[in-house]
């Protein structure tokens, strides 16, 4: 391929993009993310190659698109599949190293050495801690400036902050606080949660309000990875199945860590009755919902398309414009509007039904009522698309076939089922299948309309109208457990189901589209 001759515009552009990217990547490398930096470096290199070398010409068109697709479609899938083999939840949140480090920070009071302390307020609002040994007044230490939020309760064990020795004669910068200021400004509350480490790595922390005292680390790390309690000799071992440090008696100690658990999450879906029961129920409802949505929207859409194809009917264009309105309004708004209309006590639907028929269905509290409402709303949302597609299909049928049938003397309804439907159904199959797949993952509708409610009895966070994708979302983000591992396993199964559907669809439409 002949490159553009003249100004080296392309080369200049490549340099203008690559240089900042390299600079950014250097920052990423410097903050310790070596592998990520390496991956980004490879991508930058590939990009530079594609846009500079003639050999990569074709990929100049593909590179930006593939980059976006790779990062935001493929990476999330790979990441999900990876997470599905791990134990990763709010209880097993930290990496193993962080979890271990937290245990190593735990300490108990030794009380054999005590220190006077003073806080020095700095001009930028931060504080410096000053310590002076009670027994050897020449042993003085200062901290780097740190932030303190008055009155904030300490949470968990925090990493110890290093103290450095203060040479004799040198003053601490800032304004020293009186003891009463420390108590009145409630600075002692966050201070009680802090630990500091002397240069020889002895831990010190507040003991009472007036003093600092040396502390001993609670756990010693043994060569085999176990931890021994210095106070009572208890031994802790990491259990990589549980994702916790456990004692010999099996008690969990400290914060859990993320761990690789193989197929545990998948096994749990099939065997754990708390998951398995709701899972299959929700699976069935998801299939029923998607199937019925397709059939109903197709039915209504086709009926309207057939009526509007009747050439002698007046005002057809006006009708069609009005009929596609539900498709034109942003779906989020429509769904929320229906949430109001179907409000069980005050909504329009029930006010109308109460007034005319004298009964008010329980759209919110009865599972069947909620399901019926969801289908009604989904038909409302989905029929215009089907109508448009069917109209296109009907217009492509040559009118000759009807003339032959008219001679036969058969009626319009018979004609439709005998001639039209068999003709239009096969080419519509791909659209029907993608509509099925779309509804299979119709998160918005359920999330905004019912929120999955009413709750499934004995189903934990599962709701009677939850689709699998909503259920997964709830497990990952809404459950008190925020169980990412389990959610990822269900998501992987879901992806598999929809992927197979998409593949079948591709094979079916392969007849119509040449790739």
């Amino acid at each position, binding site marked *: *391929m002949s490159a553009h001759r003249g100004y080296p515009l392309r080369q200049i552009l490549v340099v203008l993009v690559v240089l900042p990217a390299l600079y950014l990547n250097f920052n990423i490398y410097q903050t310790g993310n070596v592998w990520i930096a390496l991956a980004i470096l490879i991508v930058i290199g590939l990009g530079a190659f594609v846009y500079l070398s003639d050999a990569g010409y074709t990929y100049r068109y593909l590179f930006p698109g*593939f980059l976006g*697709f790779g990062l935001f479609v493929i990476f999330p899938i790979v990441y*999900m599949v990876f997470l599905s083999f791990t134990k990763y939840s709010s209880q097993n949140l930290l990496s193993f190293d962080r979890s271990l480090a937290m245990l190593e920070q735990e300490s108990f009071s030794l009380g054999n050495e005590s220190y006077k302390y003073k806080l020095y307020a700095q001009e930028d609002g931060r504080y410096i801690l000053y310590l002076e040994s009670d027994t050897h007044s020449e042993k003085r230490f200062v901290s780097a400036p740190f932030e303190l939020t008055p009155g904030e309760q300490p949470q968990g064990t925090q990493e110890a902050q290093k103290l450095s020795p203060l040479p004799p004669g040198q003053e601490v910068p800032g304004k020293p606080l009186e003891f009463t200021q420390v108590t009145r400004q409630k600075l002692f509350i966050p201070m009680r949660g802090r630990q500091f480490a002397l240069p020889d790595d002895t831990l010190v922390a507040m003991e009472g309000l007036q003093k600092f005292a040396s502390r001993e680390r609670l756990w010693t790390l043994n060569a085999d990875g176990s931890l021994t309690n210095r106070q009572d000799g208890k031994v802790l071992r990491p259990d990589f199945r549980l994702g916790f440090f456990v004692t010999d008696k099996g008690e969990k100690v400290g914060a859990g860590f993320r761990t690789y658990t193989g197929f545990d999450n998948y096994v749990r879906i099939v065997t754990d009755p708390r998951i398995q029961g709701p899972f299959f129920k929700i699976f069935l409802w998801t299939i029923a919902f998607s199937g019925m949505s397709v059939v109903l929207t197709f039915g209504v859409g086709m009926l309207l398309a057939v009526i509007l194809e009747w050439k002698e009917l007046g005002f057809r264009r006006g009708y069609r414009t*009005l009929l596609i309105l539900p498709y034109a309004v*942003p*779906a989020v708004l429509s769904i929320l509007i229906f949430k109001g209309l179907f409000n069980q006590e005050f909504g329009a639907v029930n006010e109308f039904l109460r007034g005319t028929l004298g009964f008010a269905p329980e759209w919110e509290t009865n599972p069947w009522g909620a399901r019926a409402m969801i289908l009604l709303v989904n038909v*409302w949302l989905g029929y215009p698309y089907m109508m448009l597609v069917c109209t296109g299909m009907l217009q492509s049928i040559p009118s000759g076939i009807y003339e032959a049938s008219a001679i036969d003397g058969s009626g319009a309804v018979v004609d439709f089922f005998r001639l039209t439907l068999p003709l239009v159904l096969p080419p519509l199959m791909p659209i029907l299948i993608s509509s099925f797949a779309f509804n299979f993952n119709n998160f918005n509708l359920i999330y905004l309309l019912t929120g999955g409610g009413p709750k499934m009895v004995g189903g934990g966070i599962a709701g009677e109208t939850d689709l699998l*994708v909503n259920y997964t979302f709830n497990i990952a983000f809404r459950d008190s457990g925020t169980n990412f591992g389990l959610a990822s396993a269900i998501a992987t199964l879901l992806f598999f189901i929809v992927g197979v559907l998409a593949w079948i669809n591709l094979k079916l439409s392969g007849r*119509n589209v040449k790739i």
Partner: protein
Amino acid sequence: MTATQKTNLRKAAAHGFVIFFLVLILVPFAMVISASFRQGNFAPSRLLPDKVSLDHWKFVLGIPYQEIVNPATGQTRIVKAETPPLRWFWNSIKISFLSSAGIIFLSGTSAYAFARLRFTFRSPTLSALLILQMFPMVLSLVAFYVILDFTGQYVKWLGLNTQTGLIMIYLGGISNYIWMIKGYFETIPPTMEESARIDGASQFQTFVRILLPISLPIFAVVFILSFISYMSEYPVASVVLQSGENWTLAVGANSFLYEQEKLWGRFAALAVLSGLPITVIFLLCQKFVIGGLTSGGIKE
């Protein structure tokens, strides 16, 4: 009964059915409009408001108004939205517009390669694009969170709670559009481009100067479809955008409907205000969109 009578009867039945159906379809819209003018925050339930008030509209537009706190004492207070809800609409427009423009760029260039250039794994890649895109965005949220959390450490404006970060994530959803545009490119015979090549134009020039101008209609379709889908996107936006002034229309509208207190009136005013222009634009571009829908997926 003569044949004409029979036809007229049928026509009347058809009109009757369609009109009945239209009433069912349009009543919800009428009720929302009415709810937006009705005093108090009631679920939409009447065609005509009993007590007309402009309070909800003022709220949505960010205009302060007086509200009676205690009817017995006549005590009032001034109410003004912290973030004018109109801003969410503007955010949505901005985000959807920029995302759609990006989508056009990314899918247009990729589609060109698929339609006009030959490379290894071309058709498996096309199939893979379609299948992988079926993975619902909602379930990628954990990964999106991780990505934005990471990028935000180095580039502030690409982190969590930024609109640019959200736009960046939206740019991943290109595969359906690649397919649509590629289908359109393939209906255009390459003869013109070929003769331009013979006259000395570069490949890139034939793409930009010849193919792109003819293909404007399909780009219009892709733009409108992606614009509409991003206007309605809820889950990703709700996780990425945390502070009120960054919210999109979908997140903001849903925020009026808390479990404890559902502010239907305000929601209705926002829905009318923002739904109306989008609906009008859609109807004006109807011809384009319908053409794209019926020709994009399948061809005969």
